[in-house]
């Protein structure tokens, strides 16, 4: 039975790709509850199973055992932007309105939601441009706006900013998570970047491999997105760093 305050629950989840060792083993199955409005970051070394976990949450993959429960509409934000390249920004947003995941609200309500998102993400000057004419940061902003406009209450973000250059990444991350927090959107963020996790997550799960399981859970305090110069941020980052390095050690030992 799902927790009434939960946005997403994984119960006794186990999974293996065909003819491969189990990624989530039955004897160490994954249990996880993500409350509504929480921003959860999954960190860990490459190939630990972070993205697989995300695809299980999205329903792209079917678990061998256990279940995934989602309280509301869910969309995935991918590493590479997934805007429809033959539609301009306006039409991509229109696509989200036409194929909204929630029951259709009256036209004026949808239009005002669209206007509010366009304003929040500062997209007005770019509405007639096609995705290939936008910078990587703008494309990610449009994609998050499209997901929210479609009515997604849970966003599963698979390293969404990793293709951006360092400066753009910081700025787009800051702006995006400010909006997501304001809207109380539930987010699961898969990332390699500990700074990113420390800046935007309420809770960070450090995963270890073979099979994939939670090695450490770190709860972080403070307003999101956190200022990267604050003492609290520094302390959280140090703590995260220690657990993450331990997780890499485990991986090195297991591959010897």
């Amino acid at each position, binding site marked *: 039975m799902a927790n009434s305050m939960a946005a997403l629950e994984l119960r006794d989840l186990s999974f293996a790709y065909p003819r491969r060792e189990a990624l989530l083993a039955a004897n160490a199955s994954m249990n996880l509850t993500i409350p509504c409005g929480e921003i959860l970051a999954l960190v860990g070394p490459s190939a630990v199973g972070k993205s697989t976990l995300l695809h299980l949450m999205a329903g792209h993959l079917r678990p061998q055992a256990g279940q995934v429960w989602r309280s509301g509409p869910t*969309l995935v934000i*991918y590493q590479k932007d*997934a805007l*429809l390249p*033959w539609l301009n920004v306006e039409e991509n947003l229109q696509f989200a309105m036409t*194929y909204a995941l929630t029951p259709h609200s009256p036209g004026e309500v949808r239009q005002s939601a669209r206007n509010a998102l366009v304003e929040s993400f500062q997209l007005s000057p770019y509405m007639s441009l*096609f995705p*290939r004419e936008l910078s990587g940061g703008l494309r990610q902003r449009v994609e998050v706006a499209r997901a929210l406009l*479609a009515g997604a209450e849970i966003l599963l973000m698979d390293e969404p900013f990793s293709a951006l250059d360092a400066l753009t990444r910081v700025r787009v991350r800051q702006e995006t998570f400010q909006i997501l927090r304001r809207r109380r959107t539930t987010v699961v963020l898969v990332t390699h970047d500990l700074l990113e996790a420390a800046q935007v997550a309420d809770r960070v799960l450090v995963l270890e491999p073979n099979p994939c399981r939670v090695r450490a859970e770190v709860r972080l305090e403070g307003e999101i997105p956190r200022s990267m110069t604050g003492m609290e941020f520094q302390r959280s980052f140090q703590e995260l760093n220690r657990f993450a390095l331990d997780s890499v050690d485990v991986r090195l030992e297991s591959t010897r």
Partner: protein
Amino acid sequence: MDTNFFRPSMKLVVLPVLSFLIFSLAWWGLTTGESNSAWPSPTDVGRALLSEWQSERLWADWWASMSRIMIGAGFAIIAGIGLGLLFWSSLICRLALRPWVDFLRFVSPISWIPLAIMWFGIGDLPVIFLIFVSVVFPMTISTLAALENMPQLLPRVAQDFRLSRSSTLLEVILPAVWPDLLTAIRVMLGMAWVVMVAAEMIAGKQGLGFGIHDARNGMRIDLVILYMLLIGVTGWCMDRGLRWVQGRPRWRWKNG
């Protein structure tokens, strides 16, 4: 020195016009002087154009060929796209039918002429049939290749937005492969013209190919060249039309 000539836009206009003028002058120079029906001059071909224009036969032949191309190639393109989609979506169909398509696309369309005449007699039908068989099999393979090279995130987006099968096809899959299909259609139309002229020479009662055959029998080489020019100009115009569609901002995303 005026540098306007070296601008790319000037080169686009001036160079083709210049090469056309040089070719026409060379043709003129080589064919005027002595009267020779095997080597008609541009003036002879111009005179033939005027007389054929008045007799209206030229346009009747042109329209007969155009309608055959539109029907034969049109149906073949639709059938080829349909078969390509079927092969892409069904492994059973691909395994069962792909060897047939590979086999039939290596059978020269010209070799179908005796069968086409036996089955359909002389006239429109055998020519349309021959155009159809020349286009449908390569179009199937091109469609399958386009689908296999499609950005794989796009069908995933359709899945995330819970689009129906028909909406996925019309709103995502077909637009995603449309730039590649346009290139394939341009190539197929070129092939269709070649086959049509050959087919009309043997199995037609009207049309540009039949016109060439008829003019050769009457030793009217000026008419042969006139029909050849008309075929070239019509094919060029169709190709320019398709290139124009390919160049629209909406469909330029694949070529940057």
